[in-house]
């Protein structure tokens, strides 16, 4: 039978937090989410009351099964730069695009690209000598024009009715300053790119997260009062903000302020006088999720997408099972 173990100093100890019988009601009672930090690109939130398998399922889906748009076919017309064709194409494919995958369909095998599933871009850039450069300068920016190819040079070519639905800022690269190639005068790059929908399972360039990860909430317990000089040493052996030293009865005493910021370094074990009085463990069902978006989709939407994907798996499989029986 499945068990949920408490990870302590002495080894795994079964946690009473997980009931042995599964029930949706019990899950709903124990489940909670706390948002800690959120901005446009990154989000940190706590998921409490889930089993490792469910938390991991969300993380795996975020990485590999939430679709996004990336360049997948390159028509290379001219490349006289030192970067090889295939290396340049690989770099182009990794550039994150702002296009929302919900507005596009997956391109069917063998079907020609259409305005419903493809975005077309082009990159045409030529490096030339700057004739009006100041004399005796060694600055590359003064000597050459267009010697650095940035992602801002990628131009969107709308197909069909796409210019009525999107604008260039909706579908272009997320960042303008991604360096693609370096060139010298006389070198030229000309290529047309087709972008389509895919998911991280297929190629990592389609992963919508820089990374999505989680860690378990640490617990720190002081089994004996640690005071005086040892209190300050204990405070130093943990990350800042974990241990606080307060005045109690005229002497400084160590108190656990916020175990969340512990980074698992176990530096307290170096001090033999209090190492055995500090118990460090993990809360088995409290997950601290961090989602860093690549920039195309907001992190809270990404998590909702991943839950949707898991739900869709269940729904499709149920439909399949009911169809057969």
């Amino acid at each position, binding site marked *: 039978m499945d068990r949920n173990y408490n990870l302590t100093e002495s080894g795994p100890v079964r946690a009473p937090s997980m009931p042995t019988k599964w029930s*949706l009601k019990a899950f709903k009672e124990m489940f909670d*989410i706390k948002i800690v930090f959120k901005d446009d690109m990154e989000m940190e939130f706590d998921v409490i009351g889930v089993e490792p398998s469910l938390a991991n399922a969300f993380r795996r889906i975020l990485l590999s099964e939430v679709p996004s748009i990336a360049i997948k076919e390159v*028509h290379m017309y*001219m*490349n006289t730069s030192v970067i090889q064709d295939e290396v340049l194409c690989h770099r182009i494919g990794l550039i994150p695009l702002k296009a929302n995958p919900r507005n596009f369909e997956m391109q069917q095998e063998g079907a020609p690209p259409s305005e419903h599933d493809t975005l077309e871009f082009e990159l045409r850039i030529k490096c030339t000598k700057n004739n009006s450069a100041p004399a005796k300068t060694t600055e590359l920016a003064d000597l050459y024009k267009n010697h650095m190819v940035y992602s801002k040079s990628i131009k969107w070519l709308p197909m069909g009715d796409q210019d009525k639905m999107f604008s260039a800022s909706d579908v272009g690269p997320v960042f303008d300053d991604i360096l693609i190639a370096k060139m010298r005068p006389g070198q030229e790059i000309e290529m047309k790119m087709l972008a389509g929908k895919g998911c991280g399972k297929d190629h990592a360039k389609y992963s919508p997260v820089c990374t999505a990860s989680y860690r378990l909430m640490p617990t720190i317990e002081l089994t004996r009062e640690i005071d005086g000089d040892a209190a300050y040493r204990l405070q130093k052996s943990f990350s800042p903000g974990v241990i606080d030293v307060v005045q109690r009865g005229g002497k400084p005493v160590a108190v656990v302020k916020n175990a969340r910021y512990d980074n698992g370094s176990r530096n307290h074990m170096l001090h033999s006088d209090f190492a055995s009085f500090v118990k460090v463990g993990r809360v088995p069902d409290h997950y601290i999720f961090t989602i860093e978006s690549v920039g195309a989709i907001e992190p809270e939407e990404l998590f909702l997408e991943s*839950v949707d994907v898991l*739900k869709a798996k269940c729904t499709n499989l*149920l439909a399949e099972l009911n169809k057969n029986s």
Partner: protein
Amino acid sequence: MSGSAGTLSLSLPFVYRSSHVSKAVVLKMATTRAVPADSTPAEPLIVTLTGDEDNETDRTFVFTNEGHTLGNALRSIIARYPDVLFCGYTVPHPAEAKMNLRIQAFQTPALDILKRALTDLSQVCDHVKKTFTERVTEFKQSNGEAMEMG
């Protein structure tokens, strides 16, 4: 390197070539396999392994295009059902996108247990979504107020 006329020519670094559009070199970026989410797969989604025909309570289900993501989540739910004697999953080979889930029960048919687990997991997802959306809205409101005050 591609220049003009599609042939590999030794191009001297500083020769300026005219941007005459000639035969393009089409480079399709290698992808391991196309995963068209919208089209119906050629193989069936779920198949049952042979060997359990004499009763309804024991089955091994083989899922295509699934792995640890769904397998572990389902297993952790099914293993805690009261009538289940055994539940385990495995990914037989990492190169093949197949997942085997075995359910052995005392009296309930294994298929019913699987259906119940999928329904339960689906409801879990609904609840997670609902809670998450509420919390995000609360967070945005409270942070919006903080920004107005500050």
